[in-house]
């Protein structure tokens, strides 16, 4: 009986892994486009051959292998799929705001493949988004890197399974508001935020040591040692210390950014990316030297005190100082035109086309640890591609087709009026959301239930 159970479990397991392995892979030949490779310059009138989801060949006069569809892209622009390093699209829940450290929670448990935001992102050329935990906690949950395979019904099928683990951190105003002012526990100040981080990592070091001691003793013959109590929260922090997880940290002010760099140095943490980073320009040399860079808004400012002294030239200053810089959305609205957001670095700082395009392709790929797989048009990379009618950095650019793994998920010519995959039974009358833009910012979603006394004061805040 027991055996049968095991067998059954093995079968179910096998079934699952097969299902994951079977995310659709397409083959297509895109002919005669201006190919913006991002990493290897621009190729005029060139072809890109995709087979089984992978870029096989880039050049001129490539003949289509039998059975491979050809798309004529004469006069059009082909660029790598856009990557958004900060998003909350396709998440049912954003914040587990119950403790200053919640490293044990995982966004992959709350991925919703039916959210229309995925299709809308595809219509803006975005093929990968970094679905992040919110910014309520100093150490938030583990994020999920998503591939926008629209139409998938299993959440696992839109998770980029070969992407490394990442985790959300948050400094400054949100954790101090939620936990200090909201709940009366540390941190209430930026000093407290540092303490929470140092305490957490120090505890994780002890936890790690306890396991190392146990594992060493266990190897001895005839030992009678008992294992330490397993703790997912501390184990995750230990994994950060071991370099297995990339930190993506919500931050605004230069002082708090500088603080985390110092903490990271003290704990020998190398994999660190700053998010928002509105005052990153003030510590750009430090960010460039010690971290994996910053992921920033193109021009958002003044929506809260921490970003009042920021500048739209932030990305350009970071770039010129040698920091890896990406432009993100953190918004279900902005995610639809990241190509335009990236183009703003030309208005604010005169970046080149390649520099601007890198900020939404290869640079976020580096920050997510997936630049060996995506982020540029190179042979051997996954075929995430976008075709534009005109140059993607033009304000008039309109995405025409978007491919993930060589499969076309958006085509402006066959875009239907209603693209929903799932309609809730309760939606007898479809709700109309006015000023939906304010909806789009979800960094502080799901914290309301914890703070009834504030009567929604939290809800109006953005990011």
């Amino acid at each position, binding site marked *: 009986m027991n055996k049968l159970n095991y067998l059954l479990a093995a079968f179910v397991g096998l079934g699952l892994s097969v299902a994951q392995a079977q995310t659709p892979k397409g083959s297509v030949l895109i002919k005669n486009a201006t190919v913006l490779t991002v990493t290897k310059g621009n190729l005029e009138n060139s072809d890109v051959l995709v087979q089984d989801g992978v870029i096989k060949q880039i050049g001129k006069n490539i003949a289509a292998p039998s059975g491979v569809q050809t798309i004529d892209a004469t006069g059009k622009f082909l660029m790598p799929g856009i990557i958004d390093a900060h998003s909350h699209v396709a998440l049912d829940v954003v914040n587990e705001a119950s403790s200053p450290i919640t490293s044990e929670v995982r966004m992959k448990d709350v991925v919703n493949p039916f959210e229309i935001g995925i299709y809308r992102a595809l219509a803006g050329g975005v093929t990968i988004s970094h679905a992040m935990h919110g910014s309520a906690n100093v150490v938030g949950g583990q994020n999920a890197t998503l591939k926008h395979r629209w139409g998938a019904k299993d959440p696992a099928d839109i998770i980029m399974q070969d992407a490394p683990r990442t985790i959300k951190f948050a400094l400054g105003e949100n954790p101090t508001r939620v936990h200090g002012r909201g709940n009366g526990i540390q941190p209430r100040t930026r000093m407290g935020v540092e303490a929470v981080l140092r305490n957490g990592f120090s505890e994780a070091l002890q936890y790690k040591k306890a396991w190392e001691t146990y594992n060493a003793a266990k190897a001895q013959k005839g030992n009678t040692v008992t294992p330490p109590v397993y703790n997912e929260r501390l184990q995750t922090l230990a994994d950060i210390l071991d370099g297995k997880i990339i930190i993506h940290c919500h931050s605004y002010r230069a002082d708090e950014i500088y603080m985390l760099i110092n903490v990271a140095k003290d704990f020998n943490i190398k994999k660190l990316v700053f998010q928002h980073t509105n005052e990153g320009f003030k510590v750009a040399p430090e960010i460039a030297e010690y971290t994996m860079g910053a992921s920033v808004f193109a021009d958002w400012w003044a929506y809260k005190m921490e970003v009042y002294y920021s500048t739209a030239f932030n990305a350009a200053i970071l770039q010129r100082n040698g920091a890896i810089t990406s432009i993100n959305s953190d918004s279900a609205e902005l995610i639809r035109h990241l190509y335009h957001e990236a183009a703003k670095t030309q208005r604010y700082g005169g970046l080149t086309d390649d520099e601007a395009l890198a900020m939404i392709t290869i640079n976020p790929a580096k920050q997510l640890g997936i630049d060996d797989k995506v982020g540029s048009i190179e042979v051997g990379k996954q075929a995430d591609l976008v075709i534009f009618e005109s140059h993607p950095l033009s304000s008039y650019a*309109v995405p025409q087709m978007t491919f993930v793994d060589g499969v076309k998920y958006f085509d402006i010519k066959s875009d239907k009026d209603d693209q929903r995959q799932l309609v809730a039974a309760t939606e007898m009358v479809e709700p109309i959301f006015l000023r939906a833009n304010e909806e789009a910012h979800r960094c502080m979603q799901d914290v309301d239930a914890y703070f009834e006394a504030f009567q929604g004061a939290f809800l109006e805040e953005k990011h």
Partner: protein
Amino acid sequence: MKRILKTFCAALLALLPIVAMAQIDGEFVKPRTGKFLLKNATVVTVTKGTLSNTSVLLENGKISQIGANITAADAEVIDCTGMFIYPGMIDGGTRLGLVEVSSVPETVDYAEIGNVTPNMQALTTVNPNSEAIGVTRVSGVTTVLTVPTGGLFPGTAALINLNGYTPDQMYGGFKAVAMSFPSSGRRGRFDRRSEEDIKKDAEKAMKEANDIWDNAKSYLELKKSGAELSYYPEMEQLSKVIAGELPLLIEVNAASDIQNAIKWVQDKKIKVIFSGVAEGWRVAEEIAKSGIPVVTGPVQELPTRQSDRYDAAYSNAGKMAKAGVKVALRTDEEENVRNLPFHAAFAAAYGLGKEEALKAVTINPAEIFGIADQYGSVETGKRANLIVSTGDPFETRSQIIHVFIDGYRIPMSNRHIRLYQEFLERSPGLKAN
């Protein structure tokens, strides 16, 4: 080598604002007026075509001459060879000047307590020194309508030019009483009312609106008949709308609300402008038939319904214009009003077309607000509100080189640019300990 050259050119371009702003310690560049001759530009007049190799003379705050060979010995000559002159852009709906930092209540002044407060004057609370004003105007937006929001009649909107030291110096000569038309839509994700409650609330609000309107009518009749009236500033302000002295700027977005609003104003014989009009494309023919002009936006916005096409908001302006609606654009923003040209570009790309999109941020709002004799195009006699750019001002890669507001030459600087100048090459840079 080519790459180095390219980088060098990019660096030069990046330095442009710095060069233009070179200054000695302690010197502050102020806006200054005078007689300016903008020489040898391509002038996009909006109303009278595009004129190449043309010069524009500004004096006494006005555009005094446009032509190929203007001689003005006493004018400051600004060489605009290879540059383009456009009229200053007008944003038809913002909260600019009414808020400094949205999350700090002490700096938020656009929503007064109360449901009926039409006498609240946006112009009163415009902060001429708001950082956002300096940040906005260098983008080429020279004039905005700034609008209170909140209750049913939240206040009186005012048109302001983005230069001046007092609200009166900034005032652009147009006001309108704002109204939030009773809405059948949800205010956001956190609006968890049932469909039934939403409907009930809308009906209740409609009844209230009608009652208030009747009161205002009575107030006006009594006033006309010479009755002695007690102090009632709300009715006083509303009665000006009924008397036709002030237009009513109706914020309305859901399709059925737009239809109701058209019906509601039909027999009222008042001047009406719709604003928002997010679902205008669903009832574009009806709006066109009503003849009511529209200030729509934001363009870079999510659709109102999950079932809508992804580009519903992008294409809204174009669809309404095609149906014959007079369309102007707005950002509905405070600190991000500088993105108006980009909203216009999206509207252009998704159906409105470049020419109409340009009109929608220049001559159309001017006409809708009844100030087209002063604003909205480059024509002699009009206010000297214009911009000089390296190219199409809707393109991010173009740089706005000069901005003139009421004949004042605006310094091309603000805090964003000053921070760039200070931090691009920090000194000391990276330093161990």
